[in-house]
């Protein structure tokens, strides 16, 4: 296992494709939609909840009811799309998936060790039908071991084996597998016996693949082969396929990125060991040579050429047969949220979406609630093992480089980088130039020291998730606060990917004393990512909030001073000692909640201050009062707004009319009258 780590886990996160939003669904076709605009700035929401809902049925109900805002992996079942589309408040988004669904042959085992035999099997599989019947059109026939969703790495010139039972029968006849005894089952030329019943091992939890294996069984019987579906519990499957290598054929999913990892793990001879990744057990010296070259080539174009070549070779030998590429069907609550961005593999549930999504009808703000089928088990980057972990960790921590929606490298913590390659001594130096305005969630600036620390930390503690990416690093330097030089013992072009994209940067000041990275669980994870950790209510949810100090935080979302208007002074003319009210309208024009102090100045002297907190768009009237003992004209100023009022001497007052007395008297009369009335009437 030369490259373990997060590969399989980031699968869902890193893949991307043409962004689509769906206007209408027409099963069987790819769905039309328009590209979503995204400025790579955010976060735009206020709070982000990852809600644990453990069954797909409950997720669906919660979603339809509006208790969660999005429905992500494993997506909407094709059969339910029409029903969900009927709700005008729900939008469906489809994305291509980079998962690889092959029919894996056990090339160690007779007769699957015969290449032509495998080809014959490939010809009996009607993949069009599988897509039509089982995926209801939400997918397409797969043509290569690198799915089309891998973009430039996919070789479009490779073609597979068409459904053709006649051809399959011909091949089998040629190999000597003929039905000599006329019982409808082909015989083994070596023994003369009927060929045994072959099994396709499939995970018992997936009805689609079980049905598929049954279909294949049906087609096989047309050419005199017996193949049956063997739904098997997941753990047992691993034991049989990965450890004991005891199976005929199996069908499971390989979903990962980048493609070189996929190839180098799945098809290299060195991986054909118990616990290795080479499930088909293919051993081919020229494949190994090509893969080895792939992993050291310093040139991306050359890498691409090698990967394309490999795909051709793969189709020749077919250690596994590409079946179909699924279309991911996601949905979000369009009545509550907007800004979801599709990415291959995960569809719309990905970090870019979390950064961009916000409450509907406003530019910023709102709460986004994302369901997870499995609760993450850690928020420590060192302990990541599954996609559920990375989904959350990717929001809290950052990498030097990220992959954008189109799968291109996008400068992130590193604003630029370069690679110097020295082929003569098989080394290279990667230099990363960091953004200078990145801070950790606790306010400490993120510097080159942190990056240096992180790389060395992962290497020195051999953190399994990252060890493959940093094992060739022999030195890291931080010549200044914002430059990092990484020295590697390899010329490989993919080093930039391994160091830049794969490593979550850790804060040195919090991790330098952690000596057990595989045990340590930070109570309150501090990263530099777009969201800050708030609370993990185990079994229920993880709550994150928008990191307002994020270096990609939208400038227009930052707090702006209040706008003041309508200064009113009432009355504008008073006598000495009487009260004057001064009213002003205060409005928060920005997109952030702001607390600001408004001060009243009279004749240039601050007389009163009020701290006002306003939500975005909120406006209130603020009233101050004052009174003066000296007659004269007074200038009023509230944060730039001005006005005046006049105070006059008190005139000789006429004897004040004793209003209280009058009221009191009236009340007394009424009471006396009432009592009198009572007694008079009672007497009667």
């Amino acid at each position, binding site marked *: *296992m030369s490259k*373990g*780590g*997060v*590969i*399989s*886990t980031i699968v869902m996160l890193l893949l991307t494709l043409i962004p689509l939003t769906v206007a209408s669904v027409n099963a069987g076709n790819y769905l039309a939609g328009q590209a979503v605009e995204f400025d790579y700035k955010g976060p735009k929401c206020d*709070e982000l*909840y990852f*809600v*644990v*809902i*453990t*069954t797909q*049925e*409950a*997720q669906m*109900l*919660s979603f*339809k*009811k509006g*208790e969660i805002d999005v429905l992500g992996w494993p997506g909407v079942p094709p059969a339910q799309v029409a029903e969900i589309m009927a709700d005008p408040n729900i939008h469906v988004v489809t994305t291509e998936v980079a998962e690889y669904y092959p029919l894996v042959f056990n090339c160690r085992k007779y007769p699957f060790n015969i290449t032509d035999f495998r080809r014959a099997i490939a010809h009996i599989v009607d993949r069009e039908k599988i897509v039509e019947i089982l995926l209801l059109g939400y997918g397409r026939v797969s043509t290569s071991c690198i799915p089309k969703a891998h973009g430039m790495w996919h070789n479009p010139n490779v073609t597979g084996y068409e459904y053709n039972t006649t051809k399959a029968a011909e091949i089998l006849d040629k190999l000597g597998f003929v039905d000599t005894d006329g019982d409808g089952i082909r015989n083994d030329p070596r023994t003369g016996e009927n060929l045994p019943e072959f099994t396709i091992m499939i995970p018992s939890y997936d009805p689609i693949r079980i049905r598929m294996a049954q279909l294949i069984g049906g087609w096989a019987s047309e050419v005199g082969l017996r193949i049956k579906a063997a739904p098997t*519990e*997941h*753990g*047992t499957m*691993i*034991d049989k396929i*990965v*450890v004991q290598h005891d199976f005929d054929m199996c069908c499971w999913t390989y979903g990962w990125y980048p493609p070189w990892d996929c190839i180098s793990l799945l098809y290299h001879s060195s991986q054909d*060991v*118990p*616990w*290795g*990744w080479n499930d088909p057990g293919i051993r081919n010296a020229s494949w190994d040579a090509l893969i080895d070259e792939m992993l050291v080539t310093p040139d991306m174009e050359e890498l691409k050429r090698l990967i394309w070549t490999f795909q051709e070779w793969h189709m020749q030998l077919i250690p596994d047969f590409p079946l179909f590429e699924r279309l991911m069907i996601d949905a979000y609550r369009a009545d509550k949220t907007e800004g979801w961005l599709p990415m291959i593999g995960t569809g719309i549930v990905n970090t870019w979406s979390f950064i961009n999504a916000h409450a509907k009808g406003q530019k910023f703000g709102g*709460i986004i*609630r994302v369901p997870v089928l*499995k609760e993450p*088990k*850690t928020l420590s980057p060192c*302990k990541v*093992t*599954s996609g559920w972990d990375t989904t959350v960790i990717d929001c809290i921590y950052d990498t030097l480089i990220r992959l954008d929606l189109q799968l291109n490298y996008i400068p992130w913590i590193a604003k630029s980088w370069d690679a110097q390659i020295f082929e003569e001594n098989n080394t290279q130096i990667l230099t990363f130039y960091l953004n200078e305005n990145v801070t950790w969630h606790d306010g400490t600036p993120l510097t080159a020291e942190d990056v240096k620390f992180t790389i060395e930390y992962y290497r020195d503690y051999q953190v*399994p*998730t990252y060890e493959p990416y940093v094992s060739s690093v022999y030195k890291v330097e931080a010549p200044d606060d914002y430059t990092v030089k990484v020295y590697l013992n390899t010329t490989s072009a993919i080093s930039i990917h391994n160091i830049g994209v794969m490593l979550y940067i850790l804060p040195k000041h919090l991790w330098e004393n952690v000596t057990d990275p595989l*045990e340590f*669980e930070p109570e309150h994870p501090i990263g530099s990512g777009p969201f800050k950790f708030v609370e993990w*209510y*185990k*079994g*229920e*949810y993880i*709550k994150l909030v928008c990191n307002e100090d994020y270096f990609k935080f939208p400038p227009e979302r930052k707090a702006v001073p209040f706008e003041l208007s309508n200064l009113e002074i009432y009355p504008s003319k008073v006598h000495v000692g009487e009260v004057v009210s001064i009213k002003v309208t205060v409005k928060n024009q920005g997109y952030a909640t702001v607390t600001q102090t408004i001060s009243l100045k009279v004749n240039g002297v601050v007389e009163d201050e009020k701290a006002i907190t306003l939500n975005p768009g909120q406006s209130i009237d603020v009233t101050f009062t004052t009174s003066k003992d000296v007659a004269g004209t007074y200038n009023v100023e509230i944060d730039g707004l001005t006005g005046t009022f006049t105070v006059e001497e008190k005139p000789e007052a006429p004897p004040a009319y004793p209003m209280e007395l009058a009221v009191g008297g009236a009340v007394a009369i009424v009471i006396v009258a009432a009592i009198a009335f009572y007694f008079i009437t009672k007497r009667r």
Partner: protein
Amino acid sequence: MSEFRRFLIQRTIYAIITLIITITINFFIFRVMPGDPVSMLVAERVLKPSVAEEVRTRFGLNLPLWQQYILYVKNLLSGYLGYSFHWKEPVLNVIMERLPNTIILLGFSTVLSVIIGVFLGVISAWRRGSKIDVAILTSSLMFYSVPVFWIGMLFLLVFGYYLGMFPIAGTISRPPPQDYFGRVFDFLHHMTLPALTLTLISYGEFTLLMRNTLLDVLTQDYIVTARAKGLRERTVLVRHGMRNALLPTVTAIAISLGFIVSGATLTETVFSWNGVGRLIFDAMMMRDYPVLQGAFVIISISVIIANYIADLLYGFLDPRIKYAGYKG
């Protein structure tokens, strides 16, 4: 030695023997399951084979079975239930985190189903053959036999979704209410559907048991005598009938109470209730042996204790029992 003490000692010894057998079975049952726990880690392809070997050594999985067993018993005696493969935390913590949710849910629904069940059982037996009896019997049998996940999903669909009266998942709203009482109310609101489901599927057991034993009792001679004495029907039923019919029900109740800590795997999973039942389900899926083992140990102990108490209670309620078998 008084007879009661003797009875007590005897029962205690029985309980301990049961416990030993249970924990032994508990140990071996996981070892005969196919697949290796570490295989799950490697299958997620996060561990290198060499690291997997290390993990095996660390958890003692490479030792001979009998050594593993001794280690297991030793740890149990010192109160250590092991370390969860998946959660990377001591098993006891993992279970304790979820135990309150489970005890509240199961405790509430068990008590409710006992009350409803016994009450309906008495009415049913009393009005034997009437329409009420038939109605109670049919509904109890029906609810007792429908699959719990089906009724749970039906409730979710009807009360949670169509009528929108109750939340669909979890024990608390997201975002949660800010004040204490709001949270308590929110929790109860979330608990309604799962508790109702559990009550519905379990009250039948008590109804049927109560009805049958009461019917049995009501045909006894002393009931005839009581009636002949001219006692009121009500007195006959409550003082003479129910009292004697309660015995088997007490055992059933005690055992149910013992299972309170086990959670309700299916119900908790359907309602995304964060309890021990769901933990067991997750642990099963991830082959987290220590958690499963730990959960089963705690459940076993609790059931054995509940049984033990039921035994004692039984002897207390029915003096014939405790002496009959042990009179020298």
